[in-house]
């Protein structure tokens, strides 16, 4: 008999190990220690539903890549604004209509000055437009030393220049004294002390001007800052609307499915009614109707929850209301379907027999088992809200300036699309990526959470 044959046939067993296994020794009859017991338990650890789903999700390359990109977009939207010196609402008068990466004339001058010194500061670069260094106490830390000084009168149209190892390292250079190549004809040294005065503001020196990576718009606002902010607004709209739909839809659906009979019939007729409503027109009507009353309500309440809603603006809040009124029906139908299927299961019958209340059954048995379908539908609901907002922005009904959303940025860009196509490209690409990745993540979740659907 060849070795090859032994490997191929499943019926052939190598006799050696069997004999060895049956040669029992005294040691084999000792009591197992608690460690050994635990190791047996650990070896056969039961895998929970979520762990199993997580493993399936991680095995799905496309969804993992989508998740990674979505996290990058989240970082861009939520951490990004802290990393760039520009603000989404600030208008920089001298920096209008710049192409991506382009500097305004003034910024270019300051940039050139940077080549001739070891660091500079200009309100311009923190705030964008060359205005002034305001009155007050300041200090600068550079090369291990601290330079504190006082500005008694606002310095207009000038920058603060730092030159290492010179007698007076800090000096003020007026912009009118700066030459084209960045050298300057005249400067006023600043007297500095070692200890900053109480309450002094720290100034950070920079070596170059931060570029407008996405360019600026006609009002001189930095488009990257606006895109970051807009992405944040769009994502918040999407998630909040999806949560609203989740709560209303799942409560409505589970009540309908659980009650059955006439209640179910009437509740489902209401769902059908809402399905037949032409949503675009009603959404538009709602937007127009709600705009003024909401604004008045926000103006009357500036604090607390209402105040926070007011910061979002009436456009966004009426989108939430629209979702609460019209868009929960799909979720309700899905939950009802799940409940109808689940309530016939034995464990629900057992719970009923044990005298569990209806609410307890919904909470403990039905919702947890329907959670897969809920997660998937919620995830896929987010893009739909983002789409709706961008459509309303296209009509001029979404968020109002200086607020921005990806939709409003796109629709602003449409006005001058032939001259400045990049203004559309950046927000549109981010918008598309958000919707795309969420769709792919939703697909992955469906495969992971509902293995019955997996083919």
């Amino acid at each position: 008999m060849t070795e090859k044959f032994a490997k191929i046939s499943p019926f052939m067993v190598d006799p050696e190990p069997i004999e060895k296994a049956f040669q029992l020794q005294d040691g084999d009859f000792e009591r197992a220690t608690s460690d050994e017991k635990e190791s047996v338990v650990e070896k056969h650890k039961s895998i929970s539903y979520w762990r199993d789903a997580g493993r399936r999700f991680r095995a799905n390359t496309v969804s993992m890549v989508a998740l990674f990109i979505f996290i990058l977009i989240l970082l861009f939207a939520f951490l990004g604004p802290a990393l760039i010196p520009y603000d989404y609402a600030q208008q920089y008068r001298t920096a209008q209509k710049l192409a991506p990466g382009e500097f305004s004339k003034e910024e270019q001058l300051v940039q050139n000055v940077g080549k001739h010194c070891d660091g500079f500061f200009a309100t311009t670069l923190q705030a964008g437009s060359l205005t002034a260094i305001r009155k007050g106490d300041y200090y600068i830390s550079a090369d291990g030393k601290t330079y504190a000084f006082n500005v008694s009168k606002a310095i207009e149209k000038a920058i603060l220049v730092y030159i290492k190892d010179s007698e007076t390292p800090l000096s003020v250079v007026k912009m009118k004294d700066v030459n084209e190549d960045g050298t300057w004809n005249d400067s006023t040294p600043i007297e500095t002390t070692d200890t900053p005065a109480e309450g002094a503001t720290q100034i950070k020196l920079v070596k170059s001007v931060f570029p407008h990576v996405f360019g600026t718009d006609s009002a001189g606002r930095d488009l990257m800052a606006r895109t970051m902010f807009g992405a944040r607004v769009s994502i918040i709209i999407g998630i909040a609307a999806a949560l609203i739909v989740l709560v209303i839809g799942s409560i409505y659906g589970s009540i309908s499915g659980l009650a059955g009979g006439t209640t179910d019939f009437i509740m489902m007729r209401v769902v059908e009614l809402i399905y037949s409503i032409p949503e675009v027109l009603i959404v538009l009507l709602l937007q127009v109707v709600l705009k003024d009353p909401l604004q008045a309500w926000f103006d009357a309440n500036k604090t607390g929850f209402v105040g926070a809603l007011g910061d979002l603006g009436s456009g966004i809040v009426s989108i939430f209301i629209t979702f609460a009124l019209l868009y929960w029906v799909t979720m309700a139908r899905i939950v009802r379907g799940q409940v109808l299927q689940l309530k016939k299961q034995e464990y629900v019958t057992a719970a009923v027999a044990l005298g569990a209340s209806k609410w307890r059954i919904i909470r403990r048995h039905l919702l947890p088992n329907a959670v897969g379908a809920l997660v998937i539908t919620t995830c896929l609901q987010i893009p739909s809200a983002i789409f709706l907002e961008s459509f309303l922005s296209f009509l001029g009904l979404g968020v109002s300036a200086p607020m921005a959303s990806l939709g409003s940025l796109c629709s602003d860009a449409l006005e001058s699309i032939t001259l400045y196509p990049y203004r559309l490209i950046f927000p549109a690409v981010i918008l598309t990526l958000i919707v795309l990745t969420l769709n792919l993540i939703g697909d992955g979740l469906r495969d992971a959470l509902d293995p019955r659907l997996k083919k």
Partner: protein
Amino acid sequence: MVSYIVKRILGALGTLLIIMAITFFLMNAIPGSPFLTEKSTPQMIELANKKYGLDQPLLVQFKNYVLNYLRGDLGVSLKMQEGTEVSKIIFGQGKFELSLKLGLLALALAVLIGIPLGCIAAYKRGSWLDGFLRVVTTVGVAIPTFVLATLMLVFFAVQLGWLPVKSNTLPDFKSYIMPVISLSAYYTCYVAKLTRTSMLDAINQDYIRTARAKGVKTSKLVLKHALRNSLIPVVTYLGPVTAGIITGSFVVESTFQIPGLGRYFVQSVLNRDYTVIMATTVILSALVIIMNLVVDLVYRLVDPRITLTTKGD
């Protein structure tokens, strides 16, 4: 069958009445008067209100709407084309015709391209072609229509000059291309995705294996056995969508400057032209309801096992 349809139609009338009520009270909740302009005086507004019966109590106004609609009278426009009959504005000025033409073409594209693409992707599951189609369709449903329409406009009309910038009343073949493609892109991709999923479901069924074992040709297997069973979700989706698509898309019509219904609808809301808003909502809802009924009837054609009842599912 007949009693089923009659019951459905009666139910639809009730639904329409409720939708009319919702629309009526919503549009009356818009602050201000439709006649309020920079020049108008309170007396002028009062006169106009009297002329169009807007001075009567809301319930009486609503009753009048319902009675007039039962007689087939949609009223006259209050603002945008003051005094013109609404039915004439919607059907008589070529607006509906334009939107219908574009909508039907887009729908045809969605069906004729979307379904075959979905079948191919399902049949070649796991191949590079399937992967490629998956990327294309997923991106297709993720791009907002107005972005796609604008990019096409800038590229093909402005930069290259191949196609007209304004499509107007669709005078020639060239003016159809961009509006139809941008209108149908989303639906085509969605239908393709839907077909692929349900096709995969069908392909894994036992009767397909049986048919294959019997020696049925692959083409016949896909087209006759699998496709027929996988069309139900597609039909369900396309039904209500048809109602929306043939009444015009605001985005496409305003991007390509087509004077269709979609654009007019939106303008009527923004201009508070009450009678036009009401007529639009009722017509659109009626279309959605009719399409849903048609879908239920088509189910029976596609799958004879489905029986029609008025009871809940």
